[in-house]
């Protein structure tokens, strides 16, 4: 998500770059474009106005630093204001001194509450807690059954006893105390903000379980209604934060920018996929830099820390340094990387990626094909690809179900990268490959440019 917004800002900033001084007229033009970009990203009208005014005040004011170019100044201001609007500080969760810590989820139908409940349970487990899921959605057919299945998948117990949501929720908390669970996550039925009866019901559920945290769950694809609903829920319940779901699509995330602003509560978590493990704590500053196309390395590193096998990783780095990185290592890295999520989503977090690369559609099946080719090689071949002659090539192609051209492509690309790494060290190679223009390296060799790669399809 946020990609299209990123593109828009990219375009606006690019045009600024050539300018010397920025007069009021230029600033006005830039602000108009930012307004269009924000509105098309479903940012609430009210928030857009507010944001534009604040940026205008700062861009035309005396605040601008002399050492920065106009473009840099505007980018800096926009970045700071976006960060402020997105929520400033990162949400911090503290546990109740007397367990269980009770978490209540509320929101419209189809926002993703049940999926988020299971994901949250998994997240708590990763924090070393013992969550209990409570299915208080008695409205939608089979909602409780869905929670039971998800609970089983993430290894969290599910409680749903009774025929009234309030009683179910209360019993759930009692059950948690009885069996010694320290976190209770209450999933409620989806409801419209204007449905008085149901809003009253969720109010009673909240009164019965006295949640320590009440999260409003909202779909990233929501339009201007996000603000209206969030306001209504905020009036009925004491919200502590927002869970933003389905941000793995190409919705531009305006809801993210708006909801915090109107509810006055930070976005606490985002769900980046349908599976419970695609769920993470939200960092407003990182999201702002992602919108501005500056990547999100911190999240990437966190994911790497969570998913990477440390010993293997160190070995790989060592081999990269010494230039002895083989196809076997490459294959290992591929496995590690797959655990961090789809390549596409990882790509969006890398800084300095040209638009062409960010936009490239990477089908994870292509990754599987690369794997298949490598797996069809003998250990000796993986260690030293120069062994691979014509007949071996045919065998590998047949074994992996690919054509010899595919095998050749992979080998050639791998060789190029190896050379690069030897010539300039791993970091250098990566920096150059990631760079926009660097098509040539010291030796005058043409390196595979990412731009070309992006346009291959």
């Amino acid at each position, binding site marked *: 998500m946020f990609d299209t917004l990123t593109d828009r800002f990219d375009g606006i900033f690019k045009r600024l770059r050539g300018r010397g001084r920025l007069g009021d007229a230029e600033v006005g033009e830039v602000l108009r474009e930012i307004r269009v970009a924000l509105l098309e990203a479903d940012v609430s009208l009210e928030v857009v106005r507010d944001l534009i005014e604040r940026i205008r005040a700062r861009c035309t004011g005396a605040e601008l630093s002399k050492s920065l170019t106009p473009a840099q100044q505007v980018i800096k201001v926009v970045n700071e204001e976006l960060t402020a609007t997105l929520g400033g500080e990162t949400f911090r969760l503290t546990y109740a001194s007397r367990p269980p810590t009770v978490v209540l989820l509320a929101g419209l139908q189809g926002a993703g509450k049940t999926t988020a409940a299971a994901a949250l349970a998994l997240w708590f487990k990763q924090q070393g807690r013992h969550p209990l899921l409570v299915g208080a959605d008695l409205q939608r057919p089979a909602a409780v059954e*869905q929670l039971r*299945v998800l609970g089983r998948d993430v290894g969290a117990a599910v409680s749903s006893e009774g025929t009234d949501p309030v009683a179910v929720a209360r019993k759930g908390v009692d059950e948690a105390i009885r069996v010694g669970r320290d976190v209770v996550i209450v999933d409620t039925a989806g409801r419209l903000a204007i449905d008085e009866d149901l809003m009253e019901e969720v109010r009673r559920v909240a009164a019965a379980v006295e949640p320590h945290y009440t999260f409003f769950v909202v779909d990233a694809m929501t*339009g201007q209604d996000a603000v209206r609903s969030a306001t209504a829920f905020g009036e009925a319940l004491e919200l502590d934060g927002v869970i933003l779901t389905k941000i793995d699509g190409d919705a531009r995330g*305006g809801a993210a920018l708006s909801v915090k602003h109107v509810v006055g509560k930070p976005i606490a978590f985002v769900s980046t996929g349908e599976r419970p493990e695609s769920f993470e704590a939200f960092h407003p500053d990182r999201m702002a830099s992602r919108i501005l196309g500056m990547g999100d390395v911190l999240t990437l590193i966190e994911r790497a*820390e969570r998913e990477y096998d440390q010993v293997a990783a160190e070995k790989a780095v060592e081999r990269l340094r010494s230039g002895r990185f083989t196809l076997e*290592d490459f294959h290992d890295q591929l496995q590690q990387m797959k655990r961090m999520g789809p390549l596409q989503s990882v790509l969006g977090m890398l800084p300095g990626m040209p638009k062409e690369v960010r936009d490239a559609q990477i089908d994870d099946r292509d990754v599987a094909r690369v794997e298949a080719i490598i797996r069809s090689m003998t250990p000796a071949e993986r260690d030293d690809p120069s062994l691979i002659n014509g007949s071996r090539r045919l065998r590998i192609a047949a074994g992996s179900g690919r054509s010899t051209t595919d095998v050749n492509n992979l080998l050639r690309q791998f060789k190029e990268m190896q050379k690069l790494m030897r010539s300039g060290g791993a970091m250098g190679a990566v920096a150059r490959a990631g760079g926009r223009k660097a098509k040539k390296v010291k030796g005058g060799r043409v390196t595979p440019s990412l731009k070309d790669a992006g346009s291959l399809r």
Partner: protein
Amino acid sequence: MTVVLIVVIVLLLAVLGAGTMTVVRRNQLGGADRPPEPEVRDGDAPAQQLPEPSPPGEDRGTPSLDGAGSASPREPEPGTVEPGRQERAAPAGTRPRLSDRLGRAKSLLGGSLTAIRGRARVDDATFDELEEALLLADVGLPLTGRLLEDLRSRVRSGEVADNPTALLGALKADVIALFAGEDRDLRYAPESPSVWLFVGVNGVGKTTTIGKLAARESEAGRSVVVAAGDTFRAAAGDQLATWAERSGAGIVRGADGADPSSVVFDAVQHAAARGADLVLADTAGRLHTKVNLMDELRKVRRVADRPPGHVSEVLLVLDATTGQNGLVQAREFAGAVEVTGVVLTKLDGTAKGGIVCAIRSELGLPIKLVGLGEGANDLVAFDPEEFAEALFS
């Protein structure tokens, strides 16, 4: 193949991920090892669930058939109460109207355009307010710009009178005109069974819409089979089974994680064998950006269209709260599976669903049905006039 990109990225990550790890490790001065791996590692492999016991004589093992009307297909889940929402719906026999449902939303919004009506003349502020109303309804900037530009020139030429009421009336007429010539009928294939396929992103209300349509079509005297093609979301099949039971429609289900195409295939076979008229095929919600899932959907459509089945409707279900992304969704789904119409759900809340204007004007897709609540009767034909009225209420 995007081999180049993959090679580059993997290496990038190898350096980035592994490199920072060593730094982190060093900073920790060889402190505690990594926290233990979370217990639940791989959600990729759906728990191998045994399919419901299939009646003997089935040619395939996976999907099971729950005959309509016969013994209760499933025991009700403990704690899953029969939703009592129908009581909240309009009394049986009368279909709810959008305008009936608007009363509730109106009080909350307080009528954003009251200021306009109070003015004597049309000026820039009037147009600003109209722009605001359209943007707040999620009509989107490009279409809003076009509508207002056109209106402005008509006011200038005197075609539209220079007073706010006339202006608002003209704008409403323009919105209604967007939907002129729309064919909103739901199509049946000349030969049974017809297949209606339901597609859309996650959480828009596909399963609920099918539940309502199953009730409606059964009521109209057609024999209906629903295909629980959402084999991904936990208990989606159970949800559909509850609806099928209520309406007396037959249901064909697959094991969790089964190929949706096979479930739809079996549903069509089952419908043909039973002489049923209509198959309503559910699919798992999917974001239109997921190439592999869109491919899967293409396959479902292909398989459903194989004789004896005939796909006569592919309905894109769209949540009224959807913002500008709705247009992209519609474009992608239409490109993948030849969408024949749109179902706009959850219009009974504060959301206006203005994005369908853009969808209609850009892609020419007809808006066929509107969801106004959770009851079986709360699915009605789209009415442009009521919709336009609601847009500015």
